[in-house]
């Protein structure tokens, strides 16, 4: 794939040229300690927030290999690289499947954080088997009327819109009757209720859709062609989840301080799956010399490193409009990392790991992240589903027999479509 040439940096730009360009732009536009809406606007309009997006859509048209160079220069200057071309899954998906009109309307507000998305995919009866979803969208002239229930919708209360997948044809097999929309949430037909989570918070929600309305101009891709769009969006999500804590266990985000990046706000979960700083913790609890601890931490460090390196390779493979099977490896590997991290940190704390809350904030953090580990192993496609994907799509193993694949959805054995959790 050849990316389009940027305004002042061609695709073939050398690393040195890009470095100089970024440095020059930062020297002119970035004040240390800066940030805020004005900076963000300048950053987005400069194209450096998403270096690989096309020039006409807020990018620099750079080859993906140059992302790292851009990020390095930002970091050197003390500015956070936005890397929206990796983390902004909504804009990424719209750029891949949207019409020019849709790109014009949605990409910049998303990049600026003026619009925020959530993922209205899962339903009480359709999780791993997303194609079995039962929320229906019915056409009414230039609009669609939507009825059904979504669940586990992270960040729905903070979002302005949602990627909605709904059934538009019940008489064809399940994958072929789905359509993908960018649904505005601020309307009477959308009722968002927080779900009380094991972590104590309520990042996720259930969303009841009762005659909710979405314009046909907000449809992404073809009518009944939503499955393909969904695959793209899921690919971007896996990429984020696989990379979220990749190699970052040593770079703990400073508590409280610092501006949150655009990427931070995109996924309320990425904050929670970053690891603790095991090395510091081991020293603090006096176990730095304990041979078992040393083995465990070295092993965990290794898992994180190799996954980060896998991630670099996977990103290189993730072209637009197609999900990368390599990304499945990253997410599955991350699941092992976060769950291993839980046992390492729990072992480090020992008895005090039973504490929680203000009594022992370190234990509280370890315990909370022990739940957050399930965000990785369940959310965005469970470990079991990732293994199926790897087995079938990467290794080319024969597919599991699917009893409902060719049957009109109307006739398929379904799980209950609605269930109240809040």
């Amino acid at each position, binding site marked *: 794939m050849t990316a389009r040439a940027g305004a002042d940096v061609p695709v073939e730009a050398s690393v040195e040229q890009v470095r100089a360009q970024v440095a020059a732009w930062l020297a002119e536009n970035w004040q240390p300690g800066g940030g805020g809406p004005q900076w963000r606007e300048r950053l987005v309009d400069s194209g450096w927030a998403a270096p690989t997006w096309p020039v006409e859509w807020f990018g620099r048209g750079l080859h993906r290999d140059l992302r790292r160079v851009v990020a390095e220069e930002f970091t050197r200057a003390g500015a956070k690289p936005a890397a929206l071309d990796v983390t902004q899954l909504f804009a990424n998906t719209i750029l891949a499947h949207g019409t020019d009109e849709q790109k014009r309307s949605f990409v910049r507000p998303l990049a600026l954080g003026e619009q925020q998305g959530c993922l209205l995919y899962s339903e009480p009866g359709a999780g791993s088997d997303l194609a079995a979803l039962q929320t229906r969208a019915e056409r009414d002239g230039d609009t669609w009327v939507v009825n059904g229930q979504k*669940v586990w919708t992270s960040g729905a209360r903070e979002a302005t819109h949602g990627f909605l997948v709904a059934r538009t044809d019940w008489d064809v097999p399940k994958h072929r009757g789905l359509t993908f929309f960018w649904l505005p949430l601020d309307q009477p037909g959308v009722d968002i209720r927080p779900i*009380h*989570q094991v972590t104590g918070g309520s990042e996720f929600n259930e969303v009841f859709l009762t005659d909710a309305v979405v314009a046909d101009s907000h449809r992404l891709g073809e009518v009944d062609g939503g499955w393909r769009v969904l695959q793209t969006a899921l690919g971007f999500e896996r990429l984020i989840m696989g990379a979220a804590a990749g190699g970052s266990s040593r770079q703990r985000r400073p508590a409280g301080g610092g501006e949150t990046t655009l990427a931070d706000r995109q996924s309320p979960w990425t904050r929670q799956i970053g690891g603790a700083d095991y090395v510091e913790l081991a020293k603090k609890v006096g176990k730095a010399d304990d041979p078992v601890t040393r083995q465990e931490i070295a092993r965990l460090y290794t898992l994180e490193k190799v996954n980060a390196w896998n991630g670099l390779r996977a990103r290189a493979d993730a072209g637009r409009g197609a999900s990368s099977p390599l990304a499945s490896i990253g997410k599955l590997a991350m699941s092992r990392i976060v769950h291993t991290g839980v046992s390492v940190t729990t072992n480090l704390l020992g008895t005090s790991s*039973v504490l929680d809350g203000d*009594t022992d904030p370190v234990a509280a953090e370890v315990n909370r992240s022990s739940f957050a580990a399930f965000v990785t192993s369940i959310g965005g496609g469970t470990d*079991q589903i990732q293994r199926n994907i790897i087995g079938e799509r990467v290794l080319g193993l024969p597919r599991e027999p699917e*009893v409902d694949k060719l049957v009109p959805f109307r006739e398929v054995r379904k799980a209950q479509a609605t269930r109240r*959790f809040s």
Partner: protein
Amino acid sequence: MLTTGQYLGSTGRLEATVGTFEFTDDHEALRSTVRAFVEETFPEAQVRRLMAAPSALERPVWERMARELGLQGLVVPEEHGGAGAGPVELAIVLEEFGRRLVPVPFLSTALATIALTGGDRAVTAGYLEAVAEGRVVATVALAEDDGGWDAAGVHCAAVSDDGDGGAGDRGGWRLTGTKSFVPDGMDADLLVVAARTPAGVGLFAVDGAADGVSRSELEVFDLTRRLARVRLDGVAATPLSAPADTAAFDRFLDAARVAVAAEQAGGADFTLAMAVGYAKERVQFGRAIGSFQAIKHLCADALVDVESARSAAYYGAWAIAQDSPEVATVAPLAKAFCSDTFFATAQTNMQVHGGISFTYEHPAHLYYRRAKSGAQLWGSPRANRDLLATRIGL
């Protein structure tokens, strides 16, 4: 409902199976009695209510447990008003309580009772009777702020009032120090406290209402097991036996390890049953998720662990009943293995349930919390394996 009381009446006393490592019909009857009681008295809604209440102890229920089922008196000798049963029967009861996360201070009281029965009857008779009658809640205060669960972790100082403080000193004693991670420490009327005398570590009885006792509840991860920090400031105490009887102290620790292991085996067993039940019922891709080998194999592997955990806990209880030298190895083995198994099974259960397991309303997290925290109490798996390695000759 057949109560243990009636049941005990009909057979005279419960006996540990000798030599066969197999449950008798009487044991099975005890199990079904306790299971019925627990299911009736502590359904999930009640457990959650007690979780949110200021205290998980409701005295009328506690008294009923003693009066009608004789549970607190199970391992209290008959001459002190108990059933004179042994560690095998206790393991059965704890397993059943563990299955339902029963939040009443039964394990704490049982551990204290084990300590009391190992002490001088001249000192402990009164306490044992009170326990058997359901008049008191008891607990053991072993660990301190640094979280050690053996003699080395005991810094709380025991000072003799008048005597020489030597091994034979039975006079009045005073304890000063801080105990932590004390299960049900807020509710306990009687605290069995591990303290250090000039001659070594010993167990002391302390009245919870005595002058100089101050307690605070700890904020904990496991919502169904409360822990407290207890400050002792020159508190009057009575040694349960000769203060430097380290053999008695070790015997107590091993018995505690096995008791906790039995409770964990019960939790693991129930957790697996939850996972299997859901796997049969939840439909995705037009079929029950249990029909996918990924799920089937997770459950099958968990069963291997859970059954092994039960065997370890039962064998440990049996070894104690036999007063077998194997106790020294089986006890830390069982605690480590049952801890690991319960936690792994609780993880599997969360995974099998998918998104629902992340909701507060679903019980999966309550078991996960119990498993994760319980593993670290009464010695972590790692500490217990280390002890096992030493005891098998490494």
